[in-house]
């Protein structure tokens, strides 16, 4: 079956005063229709910028240098979203309607001076062309769907009147309001407390089953991945280092970085420790990218003369898996 969207050889760099940040440097993966793909990696690995690149809205001073985002819903001929004018009509018709974003900060993602209803009705009318009354009814229906009590009254509330969890529900309702085919959820649970996180994850699963929507779920938390992913893309310093089905990734990781990430999660339960998992060594500064394999300064399988000299390619392995490591085939 053809994937819903294909990210090919994406390279998005930031041209800052201090130098070029290769935020995304050759990322490729696909999202099958109706599946949830998790993108994991430590902070700064380029997850968010990958998500923004898909919507063709990379913030200044970033620029997409290369690559294609092939959008092919329902077997339609693919459209390269990166070839569209980032401010033009065509991409705007897709944003918010076919592809919706849910951001990391429910606190700040809603306007502080407009009601929830105002923003929902605006989006619904923009994409679905409903009358004001119909759009309002649909907005209330969406709030009900994401489990917000007294949805009709809530339309007239402001974001600051709601708790963090409720705000994230509103953001999710806003994202699914126009019947999208793909949700890009950028760390949607990171800012929430553990109980609320679990509830929001449940909501994502419900919506996926009820709406058949594909989800690109960005997180640095493997515990979350275990709960929601069909497929996993592991990123490090702007590159994909491994992709595969969730069971394979968890039980037979090919890449040392994936293994290290897994090793740093003590138990895959809902009651994770508050501290984020850590791996030995630090993520290098974006301006001091290591030679050869980008992971070699932190790798426990590092081989002198090989890993620091040449860069491994993203190779295919059995079970539709890919990994970027010279030693990936060697078994573990």
């Amino acid at each position, binding site marked *: 079956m053809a994937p819903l969207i294909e990210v090919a050889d994406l390279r998005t760099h930031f041209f800052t005063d201090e130098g070029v940040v290769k935020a995304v440097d050759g990322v490729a993966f696909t999202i099958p229709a109706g599946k949830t793909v998790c993108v994991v990696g430590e902070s700064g690995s380029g997850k968010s910028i990958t998500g923004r690149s898909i919507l063709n*809205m990379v913030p200044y001073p970033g620029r997409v240098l290369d690559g294609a985002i092939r959008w092919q819903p329902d077997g339609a001929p693919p459209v390269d979203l990166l070839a569209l004018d980032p401010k033009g009509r065509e991409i705007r*018709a897709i944003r918010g309607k076919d592809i919706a974003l849910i951001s990391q900060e429910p606190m700040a993602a809603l306007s502080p001076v407009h009601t929830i209803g105002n923003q929902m009705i605006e989006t619904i009318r923009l994409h679905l062309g409903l009358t004001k009354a119909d759009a309002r009814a649909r907005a209330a229906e969406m709030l009900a769907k994401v489990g917000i009590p007294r949805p009709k009254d809530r339309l007239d509330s402001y974001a600051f009147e709601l708790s963090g969890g409720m705000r994230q529900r509103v953001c999710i309702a806003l994202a699914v309001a126009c019947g999208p085919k793909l949700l890009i959820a950028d760390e949607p649970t990171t800012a929430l407390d553990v109980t609320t996180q679990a509830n929001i994850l449940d909501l994502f699963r419900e919506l996926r089953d009820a709406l058949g929507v594909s989800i690109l779920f960005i997180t640095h938390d493997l515990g979350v991945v275990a709960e929601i992913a069909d497929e996993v893309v592991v990123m490090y310093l702007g590159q994909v280092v491994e992709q595969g089905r969730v069971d394979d990734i968890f039980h037979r990781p090919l890449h040392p970085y994936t293994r290290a990430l897994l090793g740093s999660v003590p138990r895959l339960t809902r009651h994770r420790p508050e501290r984020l998992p850590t791996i030995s060594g630090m993520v290098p500064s974006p301006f001091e990218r290591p030679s050869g394999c980008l992971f070699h300064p932190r790798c426990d399988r590092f081989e002198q003369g090989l890993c620091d000299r040449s860069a491994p390619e993203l190779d295919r392995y059995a079970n539709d898996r890919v990994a970027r490591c010279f030693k990936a085939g060697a078994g573990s």
Partner: protein
Amino acid sequence: MLTYILRRILFMVPVTLAISLVAFIIIQLPPGDFITALTAQMAENNETLDPETLAALRDRYGFDQPMIVQYWKWITGIVFRGDFGQSFEWSRPVADLIWDRLGLTLIVSFATLVFVWVLAFPIGIYSAVRQYSWGDYIATFFGFIGLAVPNFLLALVLMYLSSRYLGASVGGLFSAEYVNADWSWGRVVDLLNHLWVPVIVLGTGGTAALIRIMRANLLDELKKPYVELARARGLSETRLLLKYPVRVALNPFISTLGWILPTLVSGAVVTAIVLSLPTSGPLLLNALFAQDMYLAGGFILLLSILTLIGTLVSDLLLAWLDPRIRYE
């Protein structure tokens, strides 16, 4: 909201009274009174007043009574009879002197406010959205000049330019034939012809400041997630810009309502003198020098009330614009 408005309006009453009392006391603080100022002035011209006349004057104006009694007479006169007392220097009721000047002051303030808003709003937005573009650099350059050049200098330059190249009579708000005329269409046109010079002089600094504030605020807002999310919802750049970040960055504009009047009155005296504007600043300054206390007091009181009203209106607008304030 309604209770908020009511509370604010009720709150204004004691504040106004307190201001009037403080104003009255401060006006009386310098040693001596109008009579001593008058005798000093006459002595300079080698004239003297005989003691009987002086005593009669003192008696008439109640200078020998305790200050609180004087204050009480003054404030009750204003509140119950609209009587602001008599100007010693002009020998006319204060009310007659004040209203005209106050009206013109308000007109100049309002015109300046409109000038400041109309310029600062689009330029501020442009500067932020096209940060580091040529237009932004130009706006920044003129902004700093606008902030740095003192008003009186700007006034002199404008007066020179307009009399040299436009052949216009500058200074004042009216041409000679209209100064003391009754209001007519011709007088209004004449006013508008003169108004632009003081408006530019008085408004340039504020415009420059407001452009900087708008630019900084908007740059902050543009980075916020709600702007990105509005973009991700499919809104066009113009629409999302005006509806979200500009709206949030608008607060300083509203606040100008509150400060424009006091700056015009206190800071603009020099300008008003240079431009010989018949506004309240110069008259107030004179009145203070001459210890013409009822005239000065009346001015200070009315200007304070106007400032309070300006602040109130701006606070109400802010509350209307920003629900976070409204719900506090």
